[in-house]
């Protein structure tokens, strides 16, 4: 299957117009039937509700992600077009940037979060995961979101960044604002931005060099100023990227993995029988649940995408979650299979903006699932899971469980 994007000047074929709001509460409650409608309607659709194009099949999502010259990020990766509207905060120097500016900042974060650095933090992350599991075994019954999916990343990531102990309660609310703000001007976005001032103030302060402990990811970013790779005014904004994108995403990623393994006990048993499957079990959860559901791009010129003509300056919404379950690409897309070959899923994106923190996320997921599977025989869901609503992130607000130690 190939999807092409090339300039064209002739006729616009019938792009299906859909009356679907992918940012509505009833959509979030169960997005899968609508994802199928979006995929089956055509390779490119138009959503009248927000006046945007949409792509939900794997081939087109992958094609858009991998053509950043045509589908740019500098006009915002949410619905808001930075060329027409003032962004709610100073734009990100990496996520909301195009080459060549992106290339330079990206190189810095790639170095700060490289495989070599992961080897250095691995033991610390593992020890913290084992400590968390000890505490959970004492409890037996707990909320797998607050006590596990949130508690674990909170116990390592702020320290790894080098943040001060005070004020960390702002971190998850700040991230929640950031990810709501990519959405349309609905209630979720408006309320999030209205309440954002204290969180923004906290984050701006923590990004300063003097507030970041030596040796942490934050200090490492600032160290690149001395080498001339970035300027002293750019460094705090790059630290901000890790504060925005590095915590709530892994909370939802780990939460997704626990939710999958609790719902599908056969997969939990497979993991217990072979702990080397832990990394794959996490990765498959990122495909299956897609904690980051969507991102937008803006066209820099008129373009033809799989037969559909899209004009210049149009927003294109990429349904990463729908692509990750496209039957054109995946065998049995709706089953959670921890031995699946997940390579190529777009849960972390693809192309030049593909998640620069993916190694951190996988490390956290792998060591946490390993620690759990070593010590716990059974995870049972003991109450109705509650969903958390966000314009971009998919995950739970609470998941009551009871565990049986091995």
């Amino acid at each position, binding site marked *: 299957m190939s999807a092409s994007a090339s300039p064209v000047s002739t006729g616009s074929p019938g792009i299906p117009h859909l009356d679907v709001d992918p940012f509505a509460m009833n959509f979030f409650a169960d997005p899968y039937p609508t994802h199928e409608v979006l995929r089956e309607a055509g390779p490119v659709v138009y959503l009248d509700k927000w006046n945007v194009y949409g792509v939900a099949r794997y081939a087109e999502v992958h094609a858009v992600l991998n053509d950043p010259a045509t589908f740019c990020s500098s006009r915002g990766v949410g619905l808001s077009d930075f060329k027409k509207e003032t962004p709610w905060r100073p734009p990100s120097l990496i996520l909301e940037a195009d080459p060549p500016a992106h290339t330079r900042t990206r190189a810095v974060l*790639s170095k700060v979060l*490289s*495989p070599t650095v*992961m080897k250095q933090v691995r033991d610390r992350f593992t020890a913290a995961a084992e400590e968390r599991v000890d505490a959970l075994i004492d409890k037996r019954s707990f909320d797998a979101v607050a006590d596990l999916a949130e508690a674990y990343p909170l116990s390592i990531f702020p320290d790894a960044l080098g943040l001060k102990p005070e004020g960390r309660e702002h971190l998850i609310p700040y991230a929640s604002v950031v990810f709501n703000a990519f959405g349309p001007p609905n209630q979720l976005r408006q309320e999030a931005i209205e309440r954002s001032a204290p969180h923004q103030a906290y984050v701006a302060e923590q990004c300063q060099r003097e507030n970041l402990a030596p040796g942490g990811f934050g200090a490492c970013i600032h160290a690149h100023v001395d080498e001339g790779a970035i300027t002293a005014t750019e460094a705090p904004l790059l630290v901000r990227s890790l504060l925005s994108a590095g915590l709530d995403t892994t909370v939802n990623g780990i939460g997704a993995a626990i939710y999958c393994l609790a719902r599908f006990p056969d997969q939990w048993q497979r993991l217990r029988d072979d702990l080397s499957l832990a990394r794959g079990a996490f990765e498959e959860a990122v495909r299956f649940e897609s904690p980051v559901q969507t991102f937008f791009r803006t066209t820099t010129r008129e373009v033809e995408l799989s037969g559909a003509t899209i004009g210049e300056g149009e927003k294109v919404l990429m349904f990463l979650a729908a692509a990750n379950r496209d039957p054109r690409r995946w065998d049995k897309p709706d089953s959670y299979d921890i031995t699946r070959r*997940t*390579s190529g*899923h777009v849960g972390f994106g693809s*192309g030049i903006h*593909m998640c620069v923190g993916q*190694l951190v996320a996988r490390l956290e997921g792998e060591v946490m699932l390993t620690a759990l599977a070593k010590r716990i025989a059974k995870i049972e869901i003991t109450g109705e899971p509650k969903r958390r609503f966000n314009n971009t992130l998919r995950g739970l607000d609470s998941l009551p469980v009871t565990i049986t130690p091995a």
Partner: protein
Amino acid sequence: MPAITFIHSDGKSDRVETGDGESAMQAATRHGLDGILAECGGNAMCATCHVYVDESWLARLPAMADDEDALLDGAAAERSPASRLSCQIVITPDLDGLVLRLPERQV
């Protein structure tokens, strides 16, 4: 179409046909080969598609970019002068017969 050979760490080998413009990593994963994980899907961001290029072929490959070089330092198995990321090796007709050895581990 050019074919390439992967030699697993236990000595067994697999010969795979490559598709037009495919990387060695893509050919391996399309054939379901164990030994290459390719977690980042070929974006030169994960170092889990590490291979050792057979000595006789080493000089015939295009030079590596800086990001590939940096990533290889963090590969799970030991880096050698023959180390490359298989997602960065695009198989052209002159690479027909290329031999790549797989490391013991990718993570």
